[in-house]
């Protein structure tokens, strides 16, 4: 069969299919999202879904494995923080059929809030850790991961990085191995995590890890390439590919694919065959510290550092001092940060909030994080999924202690509301929070590239689903004054926030307009133009932060290629110089 070009994520989806996975649940998050976007093509062979959050996804996948189906879940690195609770317990209870949890880490934080190294999770939870380097391995290692999960009675953590997930390389495909679902047999003695059971399970887990270490010394995921005896490199994941580009031909490699527990016998054997040993890994000295603790002399982080992703040239510079020379151009590019798209429904809300200096806005994770960027500058905090409501709650309660009159608006998106905003909404009502929860409902999970969620009315497999109504959920919790507002109407938007701030009863706002990029619904598209005779060059329109608006020769100009005619700029123009042409 010809090889096909696949991204790491596409290959993981294919690998799960070939390994006979039957039940798959995930919450989207860059750089992991495309794994599940590529599963519906196999829906005749497996079930796949978007769960409301990562913890739910792991629990669903774990339940499926208890019931006898090979299961899969996937998430970005911070998603594993959300899902950690069931992962640690699943490690003790063990599995019935194989279970694989993919974590996609994001060194250099291309689209993340931190650079955590999730290999530590495998060590902390005492579960096997598998790390592929390229797309072929992404596919092939999935099959091995299911095998290991079943052999050692544990869920397997399968770790990629942005570059493993999003790089494409050639892959030879294989056939699917059908895995029959073993009939479900009630087994509370294994799957009910009482303290007494956990007490018995811990020694079992320690024993399995010892056995797994032994397995790692000979398993096909770990391979030794002896090319010479001067220099040896121990490496894993994408760093292997960089190191292959950088070290001379006569360098020997110990390339590890099973990295928790580390195969220490194999490592010692390798170390004894070379004069100088390097450990090349991105982020934390996960392997290096363990190797050094085993009494093996090696060089690593003192040269390569703990920060950000590597590339071959960067490794050459840090290892061998070879610095590329580039001429000084004498001109520098200015920053080009991401911005809310022209016509983005979030713009009207954040512009409105930017005009109220006595409002505090606690933001959240999604496209609307960009509402905190200049010139809108309309978010005080952004911490984590769901934190928009609850971090706001802490601020509001503290302000109340000092009699500070400023009003807190906690902001989450629709997908984030279902992810972990609902618990925050309950907290605000239950503990009498003097703040206004706001849901920016654009009908889709936007930033990760348009995945369905419990509010969008469709499932990952394309079926019509119950559409959960955010305002009904809020009303059932006890919010008595709920306003539903179109953010593109700036006057209505402003009235809504003023009224909510003054409300005597618990108030909430649902800001509703679909993302302009959603396909298959009719959007009201037009173009706005500036009447240069009327424009006085006051730059009021620049304050909405629209990428389509520029000032040229002291007059506003609207780029007709980018404008979609949302009219937010027209509504803020004091001279009526901007009009929409149909």
């Amino acid at each position, binding site marked *: 069969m010809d090889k096909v070009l696949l991204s790491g994520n596409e290959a993981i989806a294919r690998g799960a299919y070939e390994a006979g996975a039957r039940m798959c649940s995930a919450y989207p998050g860059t750089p992991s999202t495309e794994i599940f976007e590529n599963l519906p093509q196999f829906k005749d062979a497996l079930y796949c879904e978007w769960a409301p959050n990562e913890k739910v996804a792991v629990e669903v996948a774990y339940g499926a494995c208890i019931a006898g189906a090979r299961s899969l879940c996937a998430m970005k690195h911070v998603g594993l923080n959300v899902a950690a609770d069931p992962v640690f317990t699943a490690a003790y209870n063990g599995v019935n059929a194989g279970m694989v949890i993919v974590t996609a880490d994001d060194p250099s934080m*291309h689209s993340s809030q931190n650079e955590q190294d999730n290999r530590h999770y495998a060590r902390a939870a005492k579960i096997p850790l598998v790390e592929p380097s390229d797309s072929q391995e992404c596919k092939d290692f999935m099959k091995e991961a299911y095998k290991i999960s079943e052999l050692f009675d544990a869920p397997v953590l399968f770790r990629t990085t942005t570059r493993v997930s999003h790089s494409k*390389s*050639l892959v030879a495909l294989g056939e699917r191995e059908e895995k029959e679902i073993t009939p479900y047999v009630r087994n509370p003695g294994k799957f009910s995590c009482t303290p007494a059971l956990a007490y018995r399970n811990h020694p079992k887990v320690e024993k399995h890890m010892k056995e797994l270490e032994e397995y790692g010394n000979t398993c096909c995921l770990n391979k030794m390439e002896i090319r010479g005896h001067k220099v040896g490199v121990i490496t894993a994941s994408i760093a292997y590919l960089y190191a292959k580009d950088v070290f001379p031909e006569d360098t020997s490699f110990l390339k590890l694919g099973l990295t928790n527990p580390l195969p220490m016998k194999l490592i010692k054997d390798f170390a004894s065959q070379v004069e100088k040993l390097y450990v090349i890994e991105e982020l934390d000295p996960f392997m290096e510290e363990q190797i050094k603790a085993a009494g093996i002399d090696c060089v690593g982080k003192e040269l390569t550092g703990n920060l950000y992703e590597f590339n*071959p040239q960067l490794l050459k510079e840090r290892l061998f001092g070879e610095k590329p020379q580039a001429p000084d*151009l004498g*001109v520098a590019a*200015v920053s080009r940060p991401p911005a809310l798209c022209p016509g983005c429904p979030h713009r009207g809300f954040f512009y409105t909030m930017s005009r109220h200096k006595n409002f505090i806005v606690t933001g959240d994770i999604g496209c609307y994080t960009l509402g905190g960027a200049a010139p809108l500058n309309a978010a005080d905090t952004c911490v984590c999924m769901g934190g928009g409501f609850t971090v706001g709650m802490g601020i509001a309660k503290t302000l109340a202690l000092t009699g500070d009159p400023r009003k807190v608006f906690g902001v989450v998106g629709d997908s984030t509301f279902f992810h972990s905003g609902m618990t925050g909404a309950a907290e605000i009502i239950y503990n009498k929070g003097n703040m206004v929860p706001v849901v920016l409902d654009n009908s889709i999970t936007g930033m990760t590239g348009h995945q369905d969620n419990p509010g969008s009315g469709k499932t990952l497999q394309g079926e019509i689903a119950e559409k959960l109504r955010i305002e009904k959920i809020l009303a059932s919790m006890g919010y008595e004054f709920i306003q539903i507002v179109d953010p593109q109407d700036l006057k209505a938007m402003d009235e809504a926030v003023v009224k909510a701030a003054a409300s005597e009863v618990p108030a909430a706002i649902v800001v509703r307009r679909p993302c302009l990029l959603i396909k298959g619904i009719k959007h009201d598209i037009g173009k706005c133009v500036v009447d240069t005779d009327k424009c006085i060059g006051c730059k009021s329109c620049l304050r909405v932060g629209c*990428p389509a608006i520029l*000032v040229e020769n002291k007059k506003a100009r609207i780029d007709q*290629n980018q404008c979609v005619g949302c009219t937010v700029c027209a509504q803020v123009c004091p001279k009526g110089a901007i009009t929409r042409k149909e």
Partner: protein
Amino acid sequence: MKESKSALLVGVGGQGAILTAKVLVNGLMKAGYDVKMSEVHGMSQRGGSVSTQVHWGEKVWSPVIGKGAADIIVAFEKMEAVRYADFLKPDGVAVINDYEMASSSIAAGLCEYPEGCLEAMQKHYRCLVLNAEKIAENLGNAKCMNIVLFGGMVKALHMDDIDWEAVIAETVPAKFKELNLQAYRAGYAAV
């Protein structure tokens, strides 16, 4: 080809750099090369600076290149050429679209678009400059700017042994086939 080669395509989210890289990769695969590519998704979709890397040869390892390692940079926007210039090898070539897009920080009035981007690039590197937007507009659709630039890229890399027109025809959506073939030819002729 003993030595591997690498290309860096840079621009602004939405300009079509990823489709261009796909055409390149499809052609290289047809010609029997080992190919790796890497792109960064995520927040960069929202008007941010984007880059896609392609690395090919008999056998290639890393999908990613660092500074001083690109044989060619294709800049879909001229300030982006400046931003990524230090990724070029000293004897590398830059294909630059003489096209200006303000960034959100410029639109917000926080800074100004730098003057002399093209001149600075031309002073220090071998550059092929074309106004791909104007060429694409003359063909009737500004969106085919990416394939115009691809035409310039093929000429710059001397990769005429691959039947690029066939590759483009197979890669782009059928209804835009003719437009993109014209765009490719126009870009090839323009540099």
